């Protein structure tokens, strides 16, 4: 399992870090889990990277699990169409 723990300040400022981590995780064949326990909210840059990553993982027949998502982020993911 490849666990990626997001930092509290994950956003446009350090979006390349998340992008690289996800890129590496997708390359490996491990299960990908994104842990949001430290994150209060995300921005659209993060949401876009998630959408592209989920799409890519899905194409490879794999899924990305999101865990410890708080209500704020859940609502944000719904607005972005990532969660129903």
């Amino acid at each position, binding site marked *: 399992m490849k666990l990626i723990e997001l930092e509290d300040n994950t*956003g*446009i*400022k*350090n*979006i*390349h870090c*998340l*992008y690289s981590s*996800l*890129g590496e995780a*997708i390359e490996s064949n491990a299960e990908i889990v994104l842990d949001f326990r430290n994150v209060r909210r*995300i*921005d*659209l*840059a993060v*949401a*876009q*990277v998630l*959408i*592209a*990553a989920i*799409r*890519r993982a899905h194409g490879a027949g794999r899924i990305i699990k999101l865990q410890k998502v708080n209500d704020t982020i859940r*609502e*944000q993911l719904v*607005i*972005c*169409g990532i969660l129903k």
Partner: protein
Amino acid sequence: MIDNAVRDVFLEESKELLDTLDSDIVRLETSPDQDVMNRVFRSVHTLKGGSGIAGYDQVYEFTHGLENLLDLVRKGETQINAAMITLLLRSLDWIRQAVAAADGEECDIAVKEALQRDINACIGEVSAVKAGGTHDEKPRIIVPGKTDAHGNRYYHIRCAFNEDIFLRGIDPLMIMEDLRRLGTFIQRKINKKDVPNFDSLDPEKCYFSWEVVLKTEHTIEKVYEVFLFVHDDNDIVIRDITENYDPDSADARIAEKRIGEILLGKGVITENELNDVLNEQDQKNAKLGDLVVSKGYATEKDVEHALVDQEKIKKKIETGTVRVDTAKLDNLLNLLGEIVIGQSAISRLADDMSEEQSFMLKNALYGMERTTREFQEQLMSIRMIPIGPSFEQFRRFVRDVSHSLNKEIYLEIEGQDTELDKTVIERISDPLKHMIRNAIDHGIESPETRAGAGKPKSGKITLRAYHQEGNVFIEVSDDGGGIDRKEVRAKAEALGLVKHGEEIADAKLLQFLFLPGFSTTSQVGELSGRGVGMDVVKNNIESLRGSVEIETREKIGTTFRVKLPLTLAIIEGMLIRVGKSIFILPMLSIVESIRPRKEDVQTVEKKGELIRVRGEYAPLVRLYEIFGIESEHHNPWESLVVIVESAGVRLGIMIDELVGQQQIVIKSLDTAITNSRSVSGAAILGNGQVALILDVHGLLSEIMS
């Protein structure tokens, strides 16, 4: 790295925002205006967003409080006053300091905390008044739109954001969350398909857009407020659809409404007609444009125009502006200069070829020169910026300085759209500041003196810019007491610059004010009067190939008029030959060239040689004498005379030959090479020869003196 890129963008943007805020806040003091107030609020909000993104947490926190206070003013819940203006301006100073502070360095926390206390006190006062209900509340006029039976309104909102919106410190997701808090998204279409595949994704770009139907109790005004900071620059369309909202069919129609919206917006079709065709479209699966034409609601031309408009909207999203480092523009200009020199060299080589080859090569060069000229014009137009923002920064300066001297002075700005090379604007700022400071300190009288002289208590300084004869003129005028010529003369006599009883022209007398150490003020003030500064002002202006003159009228006021070239880099020049030397005259200075008759040349005692041109006499200059060089001709009637003009004064320059006209890339000369005011620079010609560029204004000044 994103951090550095974001930080750089914020640093540049914050400087512009703070300058604009300075000027807008001072403007609010004299003329409270809702548009200016909204702009101030937006600027502070943008500062807040940018500082948060760039990691300036203290600025973020501070601007948050400031924004709250401004929001109360904006909503009319409190009124702006002089104390609040001062508080706002001091807050800007702190933000400026905090932004400028090096990484990790703490800025003055005590100042910040004191300001925050004052801001909170202002906010607290408003809240207390509101709670007590004792203030003179101005009811805001809101025209409520129609609602359904349950008091709900329905808005169709389409929002597509620019690609670079993240770098501007704005998070569209936050906006959508704010929108969501107003009610419920009962229809939602998220255009995720524009988000590229993972490998080709640029995480710093925004690809998202939404189309939603919002069910809410709020008015459309409230919905617009959510998009306040992005409405102008992004594709945001909000439409009240309460009357025609049909929950069953809305979703399917969202994507197709664009053309319909455009036609509706232009008044070509009515709302009912739009709904009619949308319903039919659902049944027939036809294009909306075809349907409105077939039903006779619009002509084919209307639809074509709407399609063009739609395309424009798309382009507006796709294009935008790019920030470019000015050093890159300078490099481009230098490279272009080298191309121009290269072209001249090729042109010279062509002269040595056979007639046929020379003709062919010069023909090809002609086309290339045309492109180069166009390239140069485009490049120069990029460098040209309006002088307005530079003028605006002086509003704050005038307020601060005049307050410190207990004077009431307001700044009037004219010609803010006048465009000038960015470098010139940057370098003229300090001299202008000095002239304004002088006008405040020495020019404009105290309120009591003014009242005694029957003038309004408030003085006025006018900053004016305009184009004339290929130059830019900037004037700093005041309506003060004017310069006392007797005092200037007395000082000049004391310094031995002019003899007692000697006649001296007014313009020349006033030019003494630009000499080092020359001050007529008996009191040395904190601001001016030390005789240091005006000489620096003049030197700075002359280093820009400009000039400055003074016009003054007793009791009426004084005007400093600065003349500047549009650009510092390239001029259109006329190559002239004297003996074996080549000189360059700026084309803008040339009036005509003549071969004078012997009887038109006269020598007048104390005035030197004069030449009569069309009934008027102008001084005649022999360049070979000034520069100590050889000349083919020594009699003016055997040579050519070029008539040039500067500041309305004409001058005849004796030369051997007019070589030709060409673009000249100016290379500056070290003062060690020449201190002559007659020379403004040099240029490298196609054959590698160096030619001096003559400064007609300087030439005239040297002759007159």
